[in-house]
């Protein structure tokens, strides 16, 4: 299959049957256009992706993609991020290495609604105009017998009411298209929209495009808040003011058109000894990483057992030397030293387990369920 570009991902692309998948664990829907076979869900890594028919998609899930933010992390940067993620974990799981994590990296595009609309509104606000005032501070000291004075300038705001009509086209007003969007960005950080929006996504091969799971009507209040913010900023600029507060408006929205903006994230996973796959997510622009860090209890127990076995051996040896001390009293000293060391090793054997227990006790797996 030819690798499509973002420009080609228009409504017709959404008609390709057999390219849509649903996770049977978390329920996320994906568009995956690649010759590679689909595997598990790149978000939860707990469910398998099952093909679904395009007919089963709802209209809001078929909104065309208008723009996408490019993946900006290089392999070296990803590797460094994984190294940092794994560092400091006592007895880290064996596949929690930069190499393993990098090998299993998936690219996911998270959707965001973008709405274009024409707004007609009456508006009213208090606009603030900055102006400078001069003040003074002074200091007196008996020893110098004189005053020293300093001029200081302060900025004050003169508030004046302004109102008017607004009739403008507002494009690309964004609103989350996933119910989990806010939870995700709270962990991996927000995306920068200005300056680096690419009209064209170069390579969509092996990229999972996540589809909205939120209706446009549900997302509208979020878009409306953003629209109001943008409109109020425009009204401030139109008034030539430096500040604006108490913005109110009575808007009518015409010709609403919904499209999607795609946000890049990388995801990968590692497994713990119980066989759970633990997801790790990386923001595709900044490289901010999030995932549950778990230490391996199995490894820790193994070390502890070795220490206990060594301690037991030493104990037995010390007992034999103690028996020999009947003939050679000097052996008594060696046997006491042997007993002491065996006790120390026995006590020390609990340290790896305790360390791992302490590290893991506050790391709850459910945290990853965004």
């Amino acid at each position, binding site marked *: 299959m030819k690798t499509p570009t973002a420009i080609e991902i228009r409504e017709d692309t959404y008609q390709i049957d057999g390219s849509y998948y649903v996770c049977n664990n978390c329920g996320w829907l994906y568009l995956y256009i690649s010759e590679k076979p689909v595997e598990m869900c790149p978000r939860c890594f707990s469910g398998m992706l099952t093909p679904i028919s395009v007919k089963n998609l709802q209209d809001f899930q078929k909104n065309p993609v208008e723009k996408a933010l490019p993946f900006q992390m290089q392999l070296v940067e990803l590797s460094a991020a994984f190294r940092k993620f794994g560092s400091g974990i006592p007895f880290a799981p064996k596949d929690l290495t930069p190499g393993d994590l990098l090998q299993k990296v998936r690219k996911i595009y998270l959707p965001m609604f973008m709405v274009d609309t024409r707004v007609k509104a*009456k508006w*009213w606000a*208090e606009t603030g105009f900055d*102006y*400078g*005032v*001069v*003040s*003074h*501070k*002074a*200091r*007196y*000291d*008996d*020893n110098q017998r004189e*005053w020293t*004075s300093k001029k200081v*300038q302060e900025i*004050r705001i003169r*508030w*004046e*009411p*302004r*109102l*008017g*009509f*607004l*009739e*403008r*086209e507002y494009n690309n007003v964004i609103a989350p298209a996933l119910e989990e969007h806010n939870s995700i960005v709270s962990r991996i950080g927000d995306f920068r929209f200005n300056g680096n929006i690419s009209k064209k996504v170069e390579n969509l091969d092996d990229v999972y495009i996540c589809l909205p799971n939120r209706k446009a009507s549900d997302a509208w209040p979020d878009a409306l808040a953003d629209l109001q913010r943008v409109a109020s900023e*425009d*009204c401030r*600029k*139109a*008034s*030539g003011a430096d500040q604006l507060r108490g913005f*109110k408006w*009575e808007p009518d929205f015409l010709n609403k058109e919904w499209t999607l903006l795609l946000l890049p994230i990388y995801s990968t996973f590692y497994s713990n000894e119980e066989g759970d796959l633990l997801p790790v997510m990386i923001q595709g622009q900044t490289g901010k990483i999030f995932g549950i860090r778990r230490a391996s209890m199995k490894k820790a127990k193994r070390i502890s057992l070795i220490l206990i076995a060594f301690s037991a051996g030493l104990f037995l040896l010390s007992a034999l030397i103690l028996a020999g001390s009947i003939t050679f009293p000097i052996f008594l000293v060696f046997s006491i030293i042997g007993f002491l060391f065996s006790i120390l090793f026995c006590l020390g054997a609990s340290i790896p387990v305790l360390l791992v227990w302490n590290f893991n006790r506050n790391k709850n797996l459910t945290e990853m369920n965004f």
Partner: protein
Amino acid sequence: MPESSAGLDNWNMKDDFPPTGFELTASSIKGIEVYKPKPSEEAPQKEVVDFDCPQCGATTAFSVENSGLTCSFCGYFEPAEEQIVGKDAQSFEFKVETLQQSAQGWGEVRSEIECQNCGAETSIPVGSLTSKCLFCGSNKVIQRRAVQEELRPKFLIPFKIDLQKVRAITKTWLQNDWRLPESLKEVYREADYQGLYLPFWTFDSLTLADWKAEVGHERIKRVFEDGEWKTRTEIEWRWESGHVEHKFDDVLIKGTDRISDLHFKKISNYDLQELIVYNPEYLAGIYAKSYDIPLEKAWESSRNEIREAIRQICRNHASTPRIRNFSMTLDYDDESWRYILLPIYLAVYNYQNDAFQVMVNGQNGEISGQRPVDWTKVWLVIAGIIMPGILFALIGLVTFPFGGIGGIVGLVGFVLLIAGLIASFFIFQSANQMDDI
């Protein structure tokens, strides 16, 4: 807040749009119309206001006695519109822009005005707020456009004392002092008083001061010295500190350097509760001047006065008056200013070929100025005061060899001499100050 002044408290977007009181203004974004509150509808100020009698066409002038415009030809009278604002008169912040523009001054040396009465052109010096036509004698008030609206006179205290009363005050002032020459008593008739409005700045500021000082406390100590117990007072120095907040209200600073500081201070007790909104009628026929000391310079003088006053207040906060290593920081807050006109009568009279200046507060009649001193009288009085002491001292010296009485007389003479010298010093000082500028 302009919010309420714009009358939008009860306005609803469903109502007529835009609401009354708003006008379209420039918008820097296409597709957005912006309405702002209409500026308050003040009648456009004429640059030159002529005061002609509506009845006979003669010149009218402000009458202090009647507090209105009067025509001396036909008796026409029109009361002046008086809007008392007192200390509530609007004050202004120290905007950077205002300070710069105040420093620029009026920008011209003289300007030409055309008399609406007779058409003659008159050249008037910059800073004159009033003028009289040289040809027809009509009174004019110049309301020249200021570099900034705030720098136009906005408030004034009208004259409350008329010329007749001023002459009476001057008469008393020139006659009721023994140090003045006898021939001066009739000179007041010659003094040609000129009522004029002079420019002043008033300043308000909240001052926040933090002070620190070593304060001395007396401590009585008993010590055993030279085989006996004695008490000795020692000073124990302790560090003290404090915070003082003090509001300075209407610190008055003159806006012109054409008058003597010394004399003005003596008559500067104006009651600013009588401030009224500026009205050109009050200036008709009275000379008025705009400021020539710019706002920033006047403000500096005001700050100097304020800081010395607050320093004293801080020192008074210490637990004892014995203070050393005093230091303080001072923060001026909520500073504001006003530009006002205050009434003064000025006169110059000649006495023995010397000119002497007198000024009278046009609101309350306080008077100050130069008065020639009859030094012969002063020296005679000083001689009369010292002489008994000298005489007694001499008698005491002569009679001293003849017994104890001489000593007593000599002592009395010595005391009288010292007292006489002290009294003479003060008489000389006050007489000397009388004719100081």
